């Protein structure tokens, strides 16, 4: 081994306190970044997951500024013949004002979003049916599933209660209907299902005066990476102007929800990198102490022939050792935390469960950055060390 590496290694490893402190500073910075990634990227992924599962599927088909008039059965059948497609289901959205009658009194009367679903197809293309905590999913024509918040606002409606919804049909005429509550959905997080009600799509079509019309078709894939391909296939198969279809991948359909979140993540990452900067300052301080405590040794080495450059290399090498050990520890801490978050399906105060993934490339990048910072943080102390004159250095007995 090069004598400079050897001396640097001995200097730092034989002062365990400094080595541990400096490496921990680096490791903790990595951990902070990793915790941020787990939480915020996990939250982001969880939102994407829920948007796919509940709302858009992997590919989301609509018609430009209009309802789909082609038969939904035909379109679903066509889509399901594509090998990458697991299932597809039609949806129709509307708004209605809702009220319930409890002990002879009308409770509340306000607007709720209404989601019309095909009871059979929807359970294959979406996991929305799994959010029903109490009761069952939409089945018969007059059944309705209430979001938990809606149910609460209606004075704690339960399964079996009846609710009235008032719609405006396509001609602006009020349509009043009575439904039986068959289930209550309860979701963690931000997809808004708890504020909505779910009913049979055919009932909704009839109420709105839009028989056979569909607002959107969500397509679930068995291979999510093929979304662009499926989208293109579909648009090529139905190119006519009169159809005027629009197909979107999840990145496109959920863009409005996600773009704000993305800039939030960028900000949080910035905070993490500021944490790294402060760990770099810790390394500077510890390395300065290290140089000061080795003043006499530096003097001796200079006296017996080490050049300034050699002294520089010794302390830079120390920085590399600190950076490497710190990156190693940081990876262990960070991966442990990630594993913990993943295994425990970590949530925060009832929010949606984080979708935790191991981002090895990200971890590697953070490690490299932390390592480089430790090295850069060592430059100034190392430079200071080279400025020590052998005579001055030796004055310290």
């Amino acid at each position: 081994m090069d004598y400079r590496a050897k001396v640097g290694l001995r200097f730092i490893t034989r002062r365990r306190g400094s080595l541990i402190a400096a490496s921990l500073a680096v490791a903790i910075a990595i951990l902070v970044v990793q915790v941020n990634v787990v939480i915020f990227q996990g939250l982001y992924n969880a939102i994407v997951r829920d948007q796919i599962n509940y709302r858009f599927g992997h590919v989301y088909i609509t018609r430009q500024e209009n309802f789909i008039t082609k038969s939904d059965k035909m379109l679903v059948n066509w889509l399901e013949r594509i090998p990458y497609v697991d299932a597809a289901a039609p949806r129709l959205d509307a708004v209605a004002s809702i009220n319930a009658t409890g002990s002879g009194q009308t409770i509340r009367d306000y607007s709720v979003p209404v989601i019309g679903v095909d009871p059979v197809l929807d359970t294959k293309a979406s996991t929305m049916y799994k959010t029903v905590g109490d009761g069952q999913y939409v089945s018969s024509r007059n059944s309705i599933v209430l979001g938990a918040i809606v149910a609460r606002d209606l004075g704690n409606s339960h399964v079996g209660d009846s609710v009235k919804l008032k719609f405006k049909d396509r001609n602006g005429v009020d349509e009043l209907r009575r439904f039986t509550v068959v289930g209550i959905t309860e979701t963690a997080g931000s997809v808004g299902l708890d504020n909505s009600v779910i009913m049979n799509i055919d009932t909704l079509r009839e109420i709105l005066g839009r028989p056979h019309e569909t607002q959107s078709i969500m397509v679930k894939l068995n291979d999510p990476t093929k979304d662009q391909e499926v989208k293109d296939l579909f648009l090529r198969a139905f190119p006519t102007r009169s159809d005027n279809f629009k197909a979107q991948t999840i990145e496109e359909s959920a863009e409005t929800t996600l773009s704000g979140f993305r800039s939030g993540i960028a900000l949080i990452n910035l905070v993490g990198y500021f944490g790294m900067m402060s760990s770099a300052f810790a390394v500077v301080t510890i390395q300065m102490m290290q140089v000061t405590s080795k003043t006499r040794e530096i003097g001796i080495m200079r006296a017996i022939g080490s050049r300034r450059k050699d002294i520089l290399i010794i302390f830079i090498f120390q920085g590399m050792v600190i950076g490497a050990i710190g990156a190693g520890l940081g990876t262990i801490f960070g991966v442990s935390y990630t594993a913990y978050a993943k295994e425990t399906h970590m949530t925060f105060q009832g929010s949606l469960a984080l979708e935790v993934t191991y981002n090895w490339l990200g971890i590697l990048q953070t490690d490299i950055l932390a390592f480089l910072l430790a090295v850069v943080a060592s430059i100034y102390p190392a430079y200071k060390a080279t400025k020590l004159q052998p005579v001055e250095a030796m004055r310290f007995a």
Partner: protein
Amino acid sequence: MPDLVLEVRGVDKIYGEAETAIYALKNVSFSVKKGEFILIVGSSGSGKSTLLNMIGLLDRPTNGKVFIDGLDTSTLNDNQISSFRNSKLGFIFQFSNLLADLTVLENVVLPRRIQKTDTNAVEEAKLLLKTVGLESQMNKYSNKVSGGQAQRVAICRSLINKPTIVLADEPTGNLDSVSAETTVQLMKSLNRKLGHTFIVVTHDRQQFGDVDKVITIRDGKIIEDEITEIPTIT
């Protein structure tokens, strides 16, 4: 004069400036022949260490020149001085000279590693350590050996690169009288056996007995040259 290894010509060393200036050395001139054992004596603060630092190229004179092996050392740049110190000079200091984080053997080998001529370095270092009776201590960390042993290790290190001149600044100053005596005898016998030139700073002239030359300085000036002839050993 081919056997002149050191020539100090009109060296001044001034610390500080203007009114606070201290003449640590004033017009110091002398020369040393190859193989000589020289003492620099004088009371504390007289300028002995300052003079040794000039000879050792650890510091530059304010005026005057130092020639080593006929070379005007003022012409050397920083890196050249480093490699010159490494190959031509050996150093022994008063206080612990060694790198505490290296073993005894590693300390002795270090100048060779710096020189990047490590072949056989370990064997030669072991041989030197054997000469000074420390072969059993060579794998100890150097802060684990006694003060007297540490000075003997430093002597080995100063010799590993077969320097032209070995410089020692109060090498016995920190030792008990028995260790001091051992150290003195060791340096003198190595001087005789290996023929290295020794320049030793001390405030205890008596300890060294017969030497080739004694340079006494007071207030930065040489006040006398005492030359002692010793029987030549061939």
